[in-house]
């Protein structure tokens, strides 16, 4: 009886070790993979305030994390050799973008530099609205004489560049910029990268 008890204790000990081992491997291996694919790190992404862009998106020489990220997202990605695309799910203070709040997206236009700003819900769907406004580009936005512009995200119509957000819930903003060599997004000087600032104006 004593020997059986001893053998059982050894068996439970071995099984316990293996269970811990397998659990630790699964948690560490899968969680780290998920984090690298879903969130990214400084090795794979460029972060400017709330904006996140994947540095090797759409490129034939992209790293496995970038490939997996966009395969999972199911998006049609322009190569970063042609354009940079940034997504923001939060305002510049770090608060989650939501259609119950109004936001002012302030940026600066640069000559010969094509950009676009589109609002989606957080699943990546366009937000239905009677005005059929979903995006502004450097060619359709009203830009001030000094080159600055402001796009307002709001449920209710406002004068100027208005993107309706009514009923969408959580929001995502996409900023696409061509001519990656320009000072706006140039890779030589991090301080010169100025993406639009997202201010929360009010919440209801």
């Amino acid at each position, binding site marked *: 009886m004593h020997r059986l008890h001893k053998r059982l204790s050894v068996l439970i000990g071995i099984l316990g*070790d*293996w269970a*811990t*081992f397998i659990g*630790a*491997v*699964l948690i*560490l*291996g*899968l969680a*780290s*993979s998920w984090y*690298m*694919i879903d969130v990214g790190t400084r090795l794979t992404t460029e972060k400017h305030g709330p904006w996140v862009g994947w540095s090797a998106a*759409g*490129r*034939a020489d*992209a790293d*496995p*994390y970038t*490939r*997996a990220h*966009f*395969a*999972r*997202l*199911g*998006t*049609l*990605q*322009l*190569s970063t*050799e*042609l*354009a940079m695309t940034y*997504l923001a799910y939060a305002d510049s203070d770090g608060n989650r973008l939501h259609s119950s709040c109004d936001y002012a997206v302030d940026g600066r236009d640069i000559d*010969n*530099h*094509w950009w*676009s700003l*589109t609002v*989606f819900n957080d699943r*990546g*769907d*366009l*937000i*239905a*609205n009677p005005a*059929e406004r*979903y*995006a*502004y*580009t450097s*060619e*359709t936005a009203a830009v001030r004489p000094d080159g600055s512009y402001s796009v307002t995200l709001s449920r209710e119509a406002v004068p100027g560049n208005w993107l309706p957000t009514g009923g969408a819930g959580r929001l*995502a903003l*996409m900023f*696409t910029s*061509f*001519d990656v060599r320009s000072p706006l997004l140039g890779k030589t000087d991090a301080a010169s990268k100025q993406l639009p600032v997202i201010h929360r104006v009010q919440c209801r």
Partner: protein
Amino acid sequence: MKLPGLGFLKNVNWPFVLAVPVAAGILHICATLAAPYLTAASAYSRLAPGLPVNRMQVLNTSAPGAEPLPFMSADARYAMCRFDTSGGPVSVASTLPPDSGWTLTVMTPQGDNIYGAASVASRPTPIALVLVPSEEAFLGVTPEARGIARDIQQPTVLSAARGIVVVRAPDKGFAYRQHVDAVLKDTHCTARAF
């Protein structure tokens, strides 16, 4: 001298502890490499069923409820050609207007852009591609070999079995819509014999 409180270290299975990061690393690599193939719907698999093979099609403007893909902005119009070179090479020709924001890209089913060209504001950008199943494909005797002077732009040869050619035209507002449509419709994607 005996250190208090470290007695439990004697009971730790050190081979297991050391094997955890190694096994987790192997699992991390396998999971990351397998992720693109485990995804339910890649961009290619969503777009391909709605596109004719080896023919350019201008897509309707992206609208709520009718977006072909997530995060597909309404900031551009698209023309796409799903190509399949198993029956022979596929020729692609387009001239991007002297403007900014236009692109022609060749996307593989895995989502990589194996070719990409963007317009420049100073001049039109003519693009001529020949998509072939492999680099070794024989495309016929060149004009020079036949003693004929070449008077046209030599096409760029790309090796790709399947994929989608995407022409992206920036939204410039209602006034330019007809012009944008005309340029997109003037883009060719045609199969040709070996």
